[in-house]
């Protein structure tokens, strides 16, 4: 175990996987000498050289397409999208090629590739640079979507992503990069996909989050305990596709209340899917409708106060929980 920031844990994972498997190589804008926009790949160019650490032109669709071709040719590429916002330029490759080739080729071709991207608001980067759209990628059958909330998970999940036979969309919340945590140094440390983590057990309400929102959920749980004597259970989904719905449903059967927290927009967001699945599987156990705490339905503003008002906060979570108990 060693204490490190999430960005360092991610780098460790990349480094270990590159050492373990020579099919692994990295591509992206400024991942080489610059070290990556969020310093995740810093130093890897010196260690692995230009063939395995490829700086690309600013051409998202092309680089993801090249990643797909390389994967088809037997490599295991990782493509860094800088941020999720730029991944829209590669959406066709991700959705129409990476997610579908295994299916359309009747199992002949699979695309083992990791596409990493940063997401999340809160840094006053305004509307084009702030969205959280984990749910968008989770919508597509054929993709896996990973969204770690902490350093240890980030390492174990990223290493696990390089063992997968499919395209893994690996989404990192920018607010999590600097978070420190204890991280195992065992080179075989993996975190399995589709296994949620119950961070806090409680009996009154289940709060479900992923990526950045896990921290609001945890802070809200502490506030609820201290101020309201409400005992909240907090679940970190870790991957939203595959989704560990069993852990969520079992928790809700115990607490009879569920609140979903996410940075995604409310309308059509991933929380809607999760809410529907909870209602389908635990309707009789619910004492209140499933509540969703999300970003407000607006493109994110630049102004600090406005941005803060648009993003979900722990106070919003507390309020949602209290509303459930009042009704």
């Amino acid at each position: 175990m060693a204490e490190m920031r999430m960005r360092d844990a991610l780098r460790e994972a990349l480094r270990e996987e590159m050492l373990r498997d020579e099919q692994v190589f990295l591509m992206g804008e400024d991942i080489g000498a610059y070290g990556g926009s969020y310093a995740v790949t810093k130093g890897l160019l010196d260690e692995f050289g230009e063939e395995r650490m490829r700086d690309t032109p600013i051409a998202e669709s092309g680089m993801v397409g090249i990643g797909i071709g390389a994967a088809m040719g037997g490599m295991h590429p990782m493509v860094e999208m800088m941020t999720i916002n730029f991944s829209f330029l590669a959406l066709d490759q991700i959705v129409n090629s990476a997610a579908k080739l295994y299916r359309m080729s009747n199992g002949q071709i699979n695309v083992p590739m990791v596409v990493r991207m940063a997401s999340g608001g809160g840094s006053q980067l305004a509307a084009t640079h702030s969205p959280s759209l984990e749910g968008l990628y989770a919508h597509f059958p054929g993709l896996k979507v990973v969204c770690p909330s902490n350093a240890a998970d980030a390492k174990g999940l990223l290493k696990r992503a390089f063992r997968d036979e499919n395209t893994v969309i690996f989404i990192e919340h920018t607010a999590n990069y600097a978070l420190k945590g204890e991280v195992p140094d065992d080179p075989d440390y993996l975190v399995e996909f589709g296994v949620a983590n119950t961070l806090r057990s409680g009996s009154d309400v289940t709060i479900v989050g992923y990526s950045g929102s896990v921290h609001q959920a945890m802070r809200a749980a502490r506030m609820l305990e201290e101020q309201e004597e409400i005992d909240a259970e907090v679940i970190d989904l870790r991957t939203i596709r595959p989704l560990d719905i069993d852990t969520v449903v079992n928790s809700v059967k115990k607490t009879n209340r569920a609140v979903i927290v996410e940075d995604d927009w409310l309308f059509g967001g991933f929380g809607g899917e999760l809410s529907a699945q909870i209602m389908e599987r635990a309707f009789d156990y619910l004492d209140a409708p499933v509540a969703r705490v999300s970003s407000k339905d607006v493109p994110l503003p630049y102004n600090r106060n406005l941005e803060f008002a648009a993003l979900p906060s722990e106070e919003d979570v507390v309020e949602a929980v209290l509303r459930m108990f009042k009704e």
Partner: protein
Amino acid sequence: MTTPIQSAATTELGEEQLGLFLYQMVLIRRFEEKCGELYTKGKIKGFLHLYTGQEACAVGAIAALEERDKIVTHYRDHGHALARGLDPNRVMAELFGKATGVSGGRGGSMHLYDITKGFLGGYAIVAAHLPLAVGLGVASQMKKEDSVALCIFGDGSVGEGEFHEALNMSVLWKTPTIFFCENNLYGMGVPLKESLSTDIPKLAAAYNMPAVSVDGMDVLAVHTAMKEAVAHARSGNGPYFVEAMTYRYRGHSMADPELYRLKDEIERYRKRDCIERLKTQMFEAGQLDEAKFEQIAVRVEQVVEDSIEFAERSPQPGLDTLFDFVTKEPARG
């Protein structure tokens, strides 16, 4: 950088090779004509893009490859599949949506795959497979495989950003990729001259990629250019661009009412038909006579009829396979 390619002397290739070219072109022609009929009869559904008129492109180009090489192509892909030696029975079965089809009935006409032949797919999103061919080249380089990737696409691709992204990166990284553009003068109903402000080979040349333009109605000219392209890419010199000037005899797809071009334009191109051309050349060189040609035609007829029979007889994919092949499990250790 654009240089015209002369047709190789017929004798250079030998009677057997030329006979194979002729056979493959006749096979594709008959296969496609039959597909058109079967579509009208409702046996083949979905989108169907026929390849008649363009046979020399597939046959001349693909013959320049080795077994270890890879191909990605566009949705007008039956000709390429047959030229690469995919089983006509299983190609037809795919068009019928049957379980025995090359894609198990999951792909249809536009998505044919056979990895045992290095045939890595027909792609129905215009230009999406161009970067894939660069990636295949990257894999070949990194794994020191000595294979090249052939990417076949239509003239309509050149307006897409991915065309430019792929060309640029393949030159930067010197990937063994051959970009083979089948310029049939139209992207659906839009003439190329209305959708492109320059000439296609000039685009490749602008990225410092060697580019040639050839008569795509002449299988020998296509083959000669492609051999040069393959030799270039295989010896580590990076990508190569071939534009083959060709023409499709039928509409864009079976749904095309063809309001945008005149019958006499089609007739003009039919006079330059690739099959007739090779036939004449071989007749003149004493490598073919009516009897021999008849043999080819009879054999082709049999292969095509057999493929239809095979497709008819084949089972539908089971409904219990609906969820197969969404993700590949388990993970590697």
